[in-house]
């Protein structure tokens, strides 16, 4: 019964979001305030209904109700509770429901926190958001309904794909969706502005917090996914340029560009048309990513199901929203007035360069991702575009951007002085070179480019600190004054510096792992030793174990340095009983920022086992850098200046309203 209620709530939600998309639009055309006021109420109702529906599905998973086909296909009564819950979105139907939930969640946020928005803008934004919600609610109900019942109910479920039974997967999709579904708000704002035919700096100020929030979540989501792939797949790689990864990375690149161009628009009223286009493109890339992952056109870890009707349906959604948005854009773009002028060498100029490079990089990744699909569709030839393609193109394109990043914040708006900025960055360049020289001294050998890369990483960190340093006037005024000035700097200054430092930290991690990691594949018998990263691993033997829904064989390794035992590592191979599926559980030990990574291969006839041992120097920097970037986004989001103006008025009015009640 409860399942049917959840199903019914989803149908009601569809009706509600249709109301949300139609009535407010009519309201703005007729200038009818009561119709416009339907939008926030409908958005909240839609959110509560989808939330209820999602909770019901979660409940079905928690109590292992195998009369629900979706639960039967993806769950098992012996599965640990956390994976029963994460199993809700570990499959196609459930993850689409999560997609919808987050979409309507953002609508609800706009209706709750958007009271400072002009009435018409808010009505239009929510109407567009309602249309997207309606399309996806329809998609779920028609092609991917998670509430279908089985009769008679099977006694036991088929279990969730074992590699998905992991804490990383429990957190990764919700974060990722909060990110790339969050960009729907930017899209809705862009469409609303185009419908109105009016766009100004205030628009950019309203859009920027949403962009920042979505971007921060997406950053965390991608980092989480990367770490999950790293430890769960047992391959030791942290980024595979897999189409599914690219599907989330392309919106991230576009979103990063949007973040920066919205800044220009907010501060200088320039780049208006471009910013609106970018807002449309960013969410379009999210939709495209959803299409790639959910339609089954790709075959990889995340593409759980292959069903052409779904693909065609999402493609229709894609064409409708992207095509409609771009047509509206083409129709209206001419009426948007271009804003402030600026010299090529200026803060705006630097941000344009940022946008040029990021969007080109996004286009490159997109080309590499889609080319095999297009070629196969047209000629039937199967090709693969692998990491070498992406590393070469993406790496080379990013290089000038990395060098330019510290310059940006040091250049003045309108007209900047690149030589003065260069002088200020002198210390940062020196830091980079000294550290690189230190690494050469300590490590020696290895490719020259790697040292160059590490120098760039440290230069970016020092260069980003230079901006804060200069703005506080360290060295020019008394230390206590400088400190007070530093503390008094706006949050966005810290946000910018943090985000840029994060990029530097990630660059260091990527370069160090790529250039200096060591890998040994050896056949080991108990008592044998292998060296990695200055540590000696001794293989002690194998042990059999039994988990709740798997059996495993684990190898035990003692790790010693200079003859002294420091720690030990268990590395296992598991066999998940319900699906007869083997997985590798790598053994990982962290030493500072570096890691030892041990995965087991096949047992040999003579009692030995193939063991793969990696030394991953500085690898944690990759994800720590991403977290610092995310922190930068959050700090920026907390900047008071993002909330200036209208909220103060609202605060004054609130007591009056309460008094009236």
């Amino acid at each position: 019964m409860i399942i049917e209620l959840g199903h019914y709530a989803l149908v009601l939600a569809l009706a509600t979001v249709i109301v949300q998309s139609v009535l407010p639009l009519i309201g703005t055309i007729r200038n009818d305030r009561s119709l416009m006021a339907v939008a926030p109420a409908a958005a909240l109702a839609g959110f509560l209904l989808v939330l209820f529906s999602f909770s019901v599905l979660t409940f079905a998973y928690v109590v292992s109700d195998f009369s629900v086909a979706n639960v039967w296909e993806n769950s098992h009564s012996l599965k640990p509770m956390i994976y029963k819950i994460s199993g809700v979105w570990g499959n196609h139907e459930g993850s689409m429901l999560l997609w919808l939930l987050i979409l309507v969640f953002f609508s609800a946020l706009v209706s709750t926190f958007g009271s400072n928005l002009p009435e018409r803008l808010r009505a239009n934004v929510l109407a567009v958001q309602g249309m997207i919600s309606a399309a996806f609610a329809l998609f779920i109900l028609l092609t991917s309904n998670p509430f279908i019942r089985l009769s008679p109910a099977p006694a036991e479920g088929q279990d969730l794909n074992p590699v998905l039974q992991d804490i990383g997967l429990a957190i990764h999709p919700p974060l990722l969706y909060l990110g790339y579904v969050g960009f729907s708000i930017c899209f809705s704002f862009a469409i609303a502005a185009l419908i109105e035919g009016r766009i100004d700096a205030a628009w950019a100020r309203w859009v920027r917090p949403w962009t920042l929030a979505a971007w921060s979540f997406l950053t965390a989501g991608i980092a989480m996914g990367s770490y999950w792939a790293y430890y769960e797949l047992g391959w030791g790689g942290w980024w595979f340029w897999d189409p599914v990864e690219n599907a989330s990375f392309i919106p991230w690149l576009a979103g990063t560009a949007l973040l920066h161009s919205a800044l220009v628009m907010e501060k200088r009223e320039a780049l208006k048309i471009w910013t609106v286009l970018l807002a449309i493109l960013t969410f379009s890339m999210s939709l495209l990513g959803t299409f790639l992952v959910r339609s089954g056109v790709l075959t990889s870890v995340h593409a759980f199901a292959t069903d052409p009707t779904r693909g065609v349906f999402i493609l229709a959604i894609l064409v409708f929203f992207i095509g409609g948005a771009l047509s509206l854009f083409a129709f209206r773009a001419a009426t948007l007035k271009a804003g402030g002028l600026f010299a090529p060498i200026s803060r705006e100029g630097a941000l344009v360069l940022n946008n040029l490079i990021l969007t080109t990089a996004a286009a490159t990744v997109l080309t590499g991702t889609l080319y095999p699909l297009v070629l196969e569709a047209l000629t039937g030839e199967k090709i693969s575009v692998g990491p070498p393609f992406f590393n070469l193109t993406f790496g080379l394109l990013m290089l000038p951007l990395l060098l330019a990043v510290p310059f940006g914040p040091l250049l003045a708006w309108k007209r900047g002085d690149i030589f003065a900025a260069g002088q200020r960055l002198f210390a940062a360049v020196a830091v980079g070179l000294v550290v690189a020289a230190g690494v050469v001294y300590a490590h020696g050998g290895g490719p020259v480019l790697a040292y160059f890369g590490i120098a760039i990483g440290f230069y970016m960190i020092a260069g980003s600190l230079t901006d804060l340093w200069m703005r506080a006037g360290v060295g020019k005024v008394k230390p206590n004054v400088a400190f007070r000035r530093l503390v008094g700097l706006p949050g966005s200054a810290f946000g910018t510096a943090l985000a840029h430092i994060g990029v530097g930290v990630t660059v260091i991690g990527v370069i160090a792992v790529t250039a200096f990691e060591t890998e040994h594949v050896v056949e080991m018998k108990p008592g044998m030793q292998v060296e990695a990263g200055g540590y000696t691993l001794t293989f002690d033997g194998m042990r059999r174990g039994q988990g709740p829904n798997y059996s495993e064989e684990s190898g035990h390794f003692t790790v010693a340095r200079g003859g002294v035992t420091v720690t030990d590592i268990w590395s296992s191979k598991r066999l998940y009983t319900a699906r007869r599926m083997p997985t590798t559980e790598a053994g990982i030990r962290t030493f500072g920022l570096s890691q030892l990574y041990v995965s087991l291969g096949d047992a040999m006839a003579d009692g030995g086992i193939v063991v793969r041992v990696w030394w991953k120097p500085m690898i944690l920097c990759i994800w720590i850098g991403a977290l610092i970037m995310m922190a930068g986004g959050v700090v920026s989001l907390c900047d008071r200046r993002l909330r200036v103006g209208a909220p103060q008025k609202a605060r004054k009015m609130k007591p009056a309203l309460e008094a009236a009640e």
Partner: protein
Amino acid sequence: MTRKQKRLAVIGGGVAFLVAAVLLVMFAFSQSIAYFYVPGDLAKANLEPGTRIRLGGLVEAGTVKRDEGSTVTFTVTDTLATVPVTYTGILPDLFREGQGVVAEGAFGMDGLFVADTVLAKHDETYMPKDVADRLKAQGVELSGKETIK
């Protein structure tokens, strides 16, 4: 510089960057694309030794041999032709005799296929459709919607 010249310089710079990016993409494509073949296609493909390809098919039963260390040899078949493959490293969890496999690498001068990556999937979508159909016609089981790296 006048304003017009400045604007031209900016647009010119942007266009130059985009052209460079396009050239870079084309160059990278020419360097790093691997075509997909099944053993039966190789006779007419006339590959130069050293050309990177992806070789797909089934691991022929009874052909998997491990020598000292971690080098493995096996034969990939599409039931029409077979190709011997050698690979050093750890095989993926799902690698099994009689199952689908995709090996990425190149032929050496001696005609032996040296793989540097082996992907195992029990999923027909990782095989060209005609091979999957051919295998199905011969009663080879290609079920399972699970796909794992």
